[in-house]
């Protein structure tokens, strides 16, 4: 019986087998995006004063591990440090033989062992030197910086990356504390956000199109059906039929509020046959369960309306990104029809095979028609704008399917509390601190650490000081607390000050050092965000995350 199928269909390639578990998440398009990407890790930029060799960098290396395994195209490690004994106690991608050698070369070598498909490059140089080559940075699709680092280095890197629209992740892993921020380009659009499948169903029960209405009419009289037929009517048909009846007795209006919907639900329930041997009907149960969720008029989500109103969507040019051209065509569609293109997917439901497939085809062909209409608008736009290449059909299809869930993240710079910080940043930090036991305090403690390190590195006279120097910590703490009062003079209350002191104590406990395990956790979180940014699937962090290993919890902030 199976001879009629060619043997060529009999199995996936060895690459598909190796990546099977992740292809199920981001599919071939996501995988291709990863394979096209090279990631830059700036793991240390010189010693943190004379008593330290530099940032340990285990979090950065663990991040790369989690990107090499799923098969990014390549990575570059920039790290000036020489491998020491202490590195071997924290960094898994070093071995005894690595002692005294370049940490960049050694971690690169051992990371490459993880996946022969991935290219690795290492530089035992300063990143500032490397950046003098204008071709260096553009080879990369993502920059990861291990903190604390010199402010001048961070500023230079994040500014150059911003100009090239390359995303940047800035990480701290110190003792039990982790914080990291993501800098995205000014607009970062995502089509495949992968919302919960439950939330994406759009059945259009209150505004069916003619083919769907015709299919309901062609059912004929439900009462005259035998029990088997009656028990297998797809619930969508049931709801559409009973909605028609309801409207007739309610002045042409569908149930609008909770009370009416519950009454309608009772009405549907009363139509089920109970005289059969099962004492009820599964398809009616499904219909009853679906009333509250699906009997609602279409409404455009605020976030999508915002996207439609963005200038990039309103004022297209020949050079507009595909995303904006498609978004603009979909806005035209919405303005004409009051709905978005139909996604076309149908949940499983009790039904005969043929009836279900027929219903599915009604949804699918409507979705196809909507895609055609959007495509026609796009082709017109392309001609009017004089665009050189046509947007791929596939891209339009995916966009239409996800239209209700697209997202545009407005990227922000790596947040730093300093004298030239904008008012919005300081305000967000103040408001974050107001939550009881807020982890914003850890963000502040890491900002103080950055400032301490920056001062040691840039002041030769302080070069002998430790990163745990009491005087420097106190001075920068006072300075940062004063900055927080710059635009809002309301005093910071006692509990919040204690919270900040606790965070400082926990961060200082490690004297700038890393715990492997916490860095491994940081590497997992940072890699997760990297994958989302590189595949342009799922929704990345916007823009700062703090994880507190002491109390096993995390928080997110937009700073």
């Amino acid at each position: 019986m199976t001879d009629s199928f060619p043997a060529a269909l009999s199995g996936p390639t060895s690459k598909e087998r190796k990546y099977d578990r992740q292809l199920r998440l981001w599919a071939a398009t996501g995988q291709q995006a990863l394979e096209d990407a090279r990631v830059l890790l700036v793991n240390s930029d010189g010693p943190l004063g004379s008593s330290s060799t530099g940032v340990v960098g285990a979090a950065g290396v663990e991040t790369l591990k989690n990107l090499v395994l799923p098969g990014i195209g390549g990575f570059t490690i920039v790290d000036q440090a020489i491998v020491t004994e202490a590195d071997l106690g924290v960094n898994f991608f070093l071995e005894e033989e690595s002692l005294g050698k370049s940490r960049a070369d050694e971690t690169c070598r051992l990371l490459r062992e993880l996946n022969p498909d991935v290219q690795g490059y290492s530089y035992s140089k300063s990143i500032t030197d490397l950046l003098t080559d204008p071709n260096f940075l553009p080879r990369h699709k993502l920059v990861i910086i291990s903190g604390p680092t010199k402010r001048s280095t961070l500023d230079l890197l994040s500014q150059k990356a911003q100009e090239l629209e390359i995303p940047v992740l800035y990480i701290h892993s110190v003792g039990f504390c982790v914080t990291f921020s993501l800098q995205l380009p000014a607009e970062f659009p995502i089509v495949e956000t992968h919302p919960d499948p439950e939330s994406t169903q759009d059945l259009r029960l209150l505004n069916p199109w003619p083919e769907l209405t015709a299919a309901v009419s062609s059912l004929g009289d439900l009462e005259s059906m035998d029990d088997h037929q009656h028990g297998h009517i797809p619930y969508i048909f049931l709801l559409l039929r009973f909605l028609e009846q309801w409207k007739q007795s309610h002045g042409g209006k569908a149930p609008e509020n909770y009370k009416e919907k519950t009454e309608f639900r009772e009405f549907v329930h009363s139509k089920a046959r109970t005289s059969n041997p099962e004492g009820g009907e599964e398809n009616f149960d499904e219909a009853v369960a679906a009333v509250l969720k699906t009997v609602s008029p279409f409404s455009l989500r605020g976030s999508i309306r915002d996207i439609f109103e963005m200038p990039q969507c309103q004022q297209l040019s020949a050079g507009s990104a595909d995303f904006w051209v498609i978004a603009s065509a979909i806005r035209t569609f919405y303005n004409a029809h009051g709905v978005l293109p139909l996604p076309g997917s149908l949940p499983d439901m009790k039904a005969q095979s043929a009836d279900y497939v027929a219903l599915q085809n009604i949804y699918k062909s409507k979705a196809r028609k909507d895609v055609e209409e959007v495509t026609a608008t796009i082709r017109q736009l392309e001609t009017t704008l004089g665009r050189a290449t046509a947007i791929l059909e596939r891209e339009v299809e995916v966009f239409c399917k996800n239209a209700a869930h697209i997202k545009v993240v407005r990227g922000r710079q790596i947040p730093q509390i300093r004298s030239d910080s904008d008012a919005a940043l300081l305000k967000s930090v103040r408001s974050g601190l107001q939550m009881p036991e807020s982890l914003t305090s850890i963000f502040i403690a890491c900002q103080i650490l950055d400032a301490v390190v920056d001062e040691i590195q840039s002041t030769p006279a302080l070069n002998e000081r430790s990163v745990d120097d009491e005087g420097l910590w106190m001075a920068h703490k006072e300075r940062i607390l004063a900055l927080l009062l710059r635009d809002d003079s309301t005093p910071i209350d006692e509990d919040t000050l204690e919270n900040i002191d606790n965070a400082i104590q926990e961060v200082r406990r490690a004297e700038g050092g890393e715990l492997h395990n916490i860095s491994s956790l940081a590497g997992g979180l940072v890699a997760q965000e990297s994958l989302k940014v590189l595949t342009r699937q799922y929704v990345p962090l916007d823009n700062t995350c703090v994880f507190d290993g002491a109390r096993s919890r995390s928080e997110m902030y937009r700073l």
Partner: protein
Amino acid sequence: MATSVISPSRNKGRWNHLHKVLSKPGPFSDKDWVPGQDTISALESSKILVIGAGGLGCEILKNLALSGFKDIHVIDMDTIDISNLNRQFLFRQADIGKPKAEVAAAFVERRVKGVKITPYVGKIQDKDEDYYMQFKIIICGLDSIEARRWINSTLVGMVDLENPESLKPLIDGGTEVKLGFKGQARVILPTLSSCIECQLDMHAPRPAVPLCTIATIPRQPQHCIEWAHQIAWQEKRKDDTFDSDDMEHISWIYNTALERSHQFHIHGVTFQMTQGVVKNIIPAIASTNAVIAASTTSEVLKIATSCNPYLENYMMYAGEEGVYTYTFEAEKKADCPVCGNLARNMNVDANMTLGDFIDSLGEKAEAQLKKPSMRTEEKTLYQRFPPQLEEHTRPNLQLKLRELVEDGQEIAVSDPAYTIDFRFRLHFK
């Protein structure tokens, strides 16, 4: 630049970073805690058991070794498959087919000098209480709810109130309940805090497709695959034992499912989907494993050293939209069949047959028992073994529940996967 780098000899030592944290109190460490050498010695002498050497297990072994633990044991019965290589980073192409526990242990021992890792290739059920008694803490990186329930009830059963050493903290990590970017870490102090069994209904199994749908009215490509797997194989190839790792077997299922899908005009049967359905594959990536494994290892480190408070008692993580964690205290339940002393209430339809009731226990979130036998205080309702008793109680399967038990009556359910009885009080709907 090299001139500014400090020579390695000036560094204090390999465990410099870890020892700094263990040698100073933190704001959240207990006021009575004494940091320093005693704490470090306690860490180094703690014998730890890792259950599972897969995606989570590889990470956990690495994390424990680099957290200063010196005596680690690991149990896993599996061998290495090509599809493990995208996240199980201790394994290489050349290791395919070898036992995970052995390869993982050898790799970490080679990389981290001074750590001893003892592998055991086999099932956790092979080992008895004396074996589990030797460990200070047990950490699970499993993808099977059944194995978790087994170790949980074993550890609860081992607790002797006279002997504090008999209480073995169980740290559990999981990434398999929800797809891909989600997972959870939990800390269980057997008999003292909420256990795996108390939390069973938080991890409901995916509902199975009814057999009649598969047999007569398929609508989805998955239904066609289930038909090929559950029905066609039995009919056409009943002499071959189905092996989901045999490419020829999977190809046969795929082709058979594809043909059925054409018959019913159903689209979307693919080889990848066939494998996914037949092997019940859950997507998995290195980064999620890293997050969950490190969360569990943090708790082991905190419990072994008291350097910070441990998690009480559940942290869930979701990474699809930004970074989201939720940390809370799951409740210990008085009606937990493992650590409680009351029967668990269950609402049932009195007109259901005993057979249907037994089938439903596999899917009910609060039971999840695949091969249950059951009895009331007075009589046996259904017993699978020995065969004579099975035959004797089989007619009961056709009877309705109301013909067998009273409303509010308690029944005891056993299942070959577990050593304990589960007590349920049946309430008629």
